[in-house]
């Protein structure tokens, strides 16, 4: 078992180095004749990009972007230029707020729906229609009605994280084993105690699965939402560097988004393990 983990890590590392190597070879600067004929004055006004059309940045340049941004993650040069940690902090705060609101709304509603077959059927068409709507499609509507771009961003997170949680909660609650409910009834347990001591623990793994899916979606959506709304956050950072056509910085930001997403998923994975029980 141990040696297998070690081997897997070794293969991962090799793949990584191989990819970087291939990338490096593919982006080696070519001898350019493009500007050879132009005079020096003209050449001075042109960018490096003009010499290598297609100009994808080599790994060394991306590496420099990593060093540059990670060496000072907390700087603040005015409202439009902040360090990477501050940007990620803004994004995480938005996600956390929207996600918490979604929990507050989805878990109780999911309980009610899960316990009543009638409501399940009655609400099903609404859920089915609202669920597949891309959260970003809500953005213009949210901006118009909520009249605040920050609140709109949080709303978009809320609306995209609510559905998986709602459906999973309802499903988890509905599929609690009959025997356990019957035992509770025989012991004349009050409905509130039954909900908290029987149904909640039984449905918890399913509910957390819903939350884990929701968090994944929320982190995907926040980047797009911030690219639309701007201001602060990692999505704004990507937009701002795209604006400057600075691909090394964009690649750096993409990597950071991936790492933070992985971290979030790992946290929910842990939580999921905590509430799982063996029968």
């Amino acid at each position, binding site marked *: 078992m141990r040696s297998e983990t070690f081997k897997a890590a070794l293969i991962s590392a090799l793949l990584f180095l191989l990819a970087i190597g291939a990338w490096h070879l593919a982006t080696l600067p070519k001898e350019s004749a*493009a500007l050879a*004929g*132009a005079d020096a*004055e*003209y050449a*001075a*006004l*042109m*960018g490096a*990009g*003009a*010499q290598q*059309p297609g*100009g994808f940045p080599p790994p060394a340049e991306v590496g420099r972007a990593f060093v540059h941004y990670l060496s000072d993650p907390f700087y603040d*040069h*005015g*409202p*439009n*230029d902040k360090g990477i940690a501050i940007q990620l902090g803004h994004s995480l705060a938005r996600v956390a707020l929207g996600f918490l609101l979604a929990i507050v709304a989805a878990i109780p509603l999911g309980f009610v729906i899960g316990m009543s077959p009638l409501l399940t059927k009655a609400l099903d068409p609404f859920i089915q229609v609202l669920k597949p709507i891309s959260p970003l499609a809500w953005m213009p509507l949210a*901006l*118009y009605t909520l*009249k*605040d*771009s920050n609140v709109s961003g949080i709303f978009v997170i809320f609306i995209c994280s609510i559905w998986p949680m709602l459906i999973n909660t309802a499903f988890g609650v509905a599929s609690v084993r009959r025997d356990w409910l019957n035992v509770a009834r025989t012991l004349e347990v009050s409905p509130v105690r039954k909900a908290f001591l029987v149904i909640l623990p039984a449905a918890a793994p399913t509910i957390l699965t819903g939350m884990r899916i929701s968090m994944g979606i929320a982190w995907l959506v926040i980047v797009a939402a911030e*690219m*639309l*709304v*701007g*201001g602060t956050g990692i999505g*704004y950072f990507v*937009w*701002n*560097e*795209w*604006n*400057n*056509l600075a691909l090394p910085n964009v690649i750096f930001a993409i990597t950071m988004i991936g790492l933070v997403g992985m971290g979030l998923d790992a946290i929910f994975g842990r939580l999921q393990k905590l509430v799982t029980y063996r029968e």
Partner: protein
Amino acid sequence: MALHDPFDPHHSLTHCSCGRHGSQAEHDAALAQDDADALNRRVVQGAVMRALFPQDAERRRFLSAVGASTAWAAISSLVPFGALEAMAQEKGSLEKKELKIGFIPITCASPLIMADPLGFYKKQGLDVSVIKTAGWALIRDKVINKEYDASHMLAPMPIAMSMGVGSAPTPVNVATIQNVNGQAITLHVKHKDKRDPKQWKGFKFAVPFEYSMHNFLLRYYVAEHGLDPDKDIQIRVVPPPEMVANLRAGNLDGYLGPDPFNQRAVYDGVGFIHILSKEIWDGHPCCSFGVQTQFVKENPNTFAALYRAVLQAAAMANDPKNRPIMAEVLSPANYLNQPKTVIEQVLTGKFADGLGGVQTVPDRAGFDPFPWYSMAVWIITQMKRWGYIKGDVKYRDIAEQVYLLTDARKRMAEVGLVAPKDAYQKFKVMGKEFDPAKPEAYVGSFAIRRT
């Protein structure tokens, strides 16, 4: 004290030391190194002295004869300088001090951005954050939502918003024009041999927004060459930052976009500058400094202070001497986030055209702030021409309601700038004269139109 004393017989009030400004006061406002209060005092005194002595030679003779201090005592016994200065200042009661101003990261926004690092806002007692915004639709929504107190806007946007075209009707005013000229038609390098617009049939073009000068100028330009912009070419709305990437990918054949993105396409070797927008209409407005009418009404003193700061910034930006420094200040990530040489080429007008040549066009970009009514009328004629508005249009009423020309004149006088006396100005667009007195006839005079 750099600003000259109007009671000094040895100095002229009608010319400045460098000779490029109407008066020494204006010169100094442009340099903007003076304490705002002293500047204000001098401007008021200068205005009074000019009124008393219309002939500058007469004022000098008078002052030399009686001496400055006697003259000062005599005149201040007649004229309440203190009260006048207080009136011009309108300080002490700013309704709102912390303001948010939005901008799109393009060189058009230079004046309102520069006012921040140069401290022009602070000098007026304002605490302003200038906030970079992702697109024009967002600017519109944030102004309507009052997230921004004032904003960089395209010159036609306040007109469209006030009329309720493309949004819920929200009265918005144009305090100043942000910039004139400074745009260009950029084409993909593969079209180097297609310099005649007649060869552009089927091309895909981009403009930054429906209600933009870019859209109206591009339509005008191709229509003058016999192409119908709605049928013969395709015009898409693409945010400026995405224009270069789309041009590189071949999704676009060209665009009439704001700088620095024209120069950026050249810099990256994907496009060339076909023409500068000044070749279509020299002196055309592009962006404006817009404020919701409600804000103007509720915060008159703050608005006046903001107005003065932006006008001073415009005067500073309009001076070619300051352009290289501006490029330095504007290029970091907090503002435009572009290579310095790109911004410098745009602002100084010495640029690579993408065809292997270096051109020198000093007036490639300008920052004349005066909001001519006739500019607004022209914009409305084009909105009518291309079917964005229908039916009877009260050109002059809308123009005079949205563009704050009288206010601009007043505030310009306060900071020592000389405003033009006219409100309507005739101008030529591609050689064809526009008479603001006959807008309807102008619309009807075009062969290609949607009316």
